[in-house]
């Protein structure tokens, strides 16, 4: 145990893992309550396109992914609203075309792209100092932003109409939440990978909803489950020499099913 903690790459991984999973635990509450898990999956796969833009242009892939994901999230909204098609179909279109854009750009990139696997499957153990700082900064911004507008986001989740009558700009808060969702997806990318991020957006919230009696208890449980999954998953990954992204998500899933059994027994 102590041996694990003494290695600097493991310290960094744990530090970033805990912060990022706290963020995804917080965001997960609303992803679950607002039934946004498919849009979460859509945006996270779109991150692949965003990363590829970074590779192609030589810019920082995390930064390009953040902007690209925000654009996709808002694009999904606009296309489903203005185009009068279901949000479901709109997500499907952006989801696939972003992945396709990613594949095209990667094949055009001259740069050696072994790093790509780090984004697809996560590579928390190889996280750089700069990425730690970037994750920390964005996490703080997201957490503070969410807490400032928590009561408005919750009221909109309960009923958009009542929120509007209460003088809340539902459109602005919804855009804000999509931006927060996109940013939290991108900063989770290095932890569990693009393919598995949506698990971190759904499992903690779904587990918390089994027991929560109010918003605060749901946030508390959700963040707890997310952080516990990351910590346990990292130790398992170290012990058994398995990919951390997979072990973190499997740990979260195991916790969910354990909670489900516990709930049924009650």
């Amino acid at each position, binding site marked *: 145990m102590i041996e694990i903690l003494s290695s600097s790459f493991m310290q960094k991984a744990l530090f970033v893992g805990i912060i990022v999973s706290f963020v995804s635990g917080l965001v997960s509450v609303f992803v679950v309550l607002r039934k946004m898990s498919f849009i979460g999956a859509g945006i996270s796969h779109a991150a692949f396109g965003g990363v590829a833009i970074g590779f192609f242009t030589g810019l920082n892939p995390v930064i390009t992914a953040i902007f690209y994901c925000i654009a996709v999230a808002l694009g999904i909204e606009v296309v489903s609203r203005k185009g009068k098609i279901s949000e479901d179909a709109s997500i499907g279109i952006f989801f696939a075309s972003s992945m396709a854009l990613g594949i095209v750009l990667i094949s055009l990139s001259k740069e050696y792209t072994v790093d790509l696997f780090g984004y697809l499957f996560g590579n928390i153990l190889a996280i750089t100092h700069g990425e730690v700082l970037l994750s920390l900064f964005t996490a703080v911004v997201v957490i503070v932003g969410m807490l*400032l507008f928590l009561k*408005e986001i919750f009221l909109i989740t*309960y009923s958009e*109409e009542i929120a509007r009558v209460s003088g809340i700009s539902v459109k602005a808060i919804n855009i804000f939440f999509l931006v927060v969702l996109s940013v939290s997806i991108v900063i989770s990318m290095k932890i569990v990978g693009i393919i598995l991020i949506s698990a971190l957006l759904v499992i903690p919230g779904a587990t918390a909803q089994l027991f*929560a009696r109010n918003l605060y208890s749901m946030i508390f449980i959700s963040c707890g489950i997310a952080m516990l999954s990351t910590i346990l998953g990292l130790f398992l990954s170290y012990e058994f020499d398995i990919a951390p992204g997979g072990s973190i998500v499997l740990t979260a899933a195991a916790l969910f099913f354990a909670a489900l059994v516990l709930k049924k027994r009650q």
Partner: protein
Amino acid sequence: MRAIEINNLSVTFNGKDVLKDITLSLDEGRFIGIVGPNGGGKTTLLRVILGLVKPLSGQIYVFGKLPEDILKTGNIFGYLPQILKVEPNFPVRVIDVVMMGRYGKIGMLRWPGGKDVEKSMECLSMMGVADLKDMLYGQLSGGQQQRVSIARALAGEPRILILDEPSTGIDVVGQEDFYHLLKGLQKKFNLTVIMASHDIGAITTYVDEIACLNHTFHYQGNPLGALDEKVMTNLYGKNVDVLMHTDICDKCERLRRE
């Protein structure tokens, strides 16, 4: 003071007239019932007053201001929508729901304090459901949810209370108590109450005014006058006997004979 002033207002959705030539003026502290068949535009009229739907033509003023300006302030209206589906495991307790009614008053970037809790509890007590405060809202019965939602609508200390089919989920016996309670609240707080309902017979004894709406107003004024056969036919068409078969309409028959 004039609470609502509407002149020649029309609303269309996809080329169809939902509301046509609506003119209405309502003083503060009055209780008006908007009755009419389902699909007759009652909900749309309420949403126009709330500033949620923009009219195609005509004017509407709430306390002399445009509804969209009133909407931004967030503390004039208490609103009970017709359908509010909350899942049984949605993590919100009764007290949290009522507290939401104060968010418009509290405003952005501020947190509810002790006074807000106190006011919320007061509203729950008024509706006779204070003992439910720690229950999950989604697990209550329809009638209990309705009472809690009205407590929520009252918690923001509104000047106008807008209720869309509030008796949904409440049994016929409970409805009488319920309307009685509303009447009491109106008097106590000098509230302007606008209530949409499709059961004309049940509300006539409680409201001060009635407006019969089927895309346009077929009658406006004293509640008893609305029970005229011609008005009823304009409102509900030939299927008027469908309404007469219920207990509630036995009562409207009685009222008509008196």
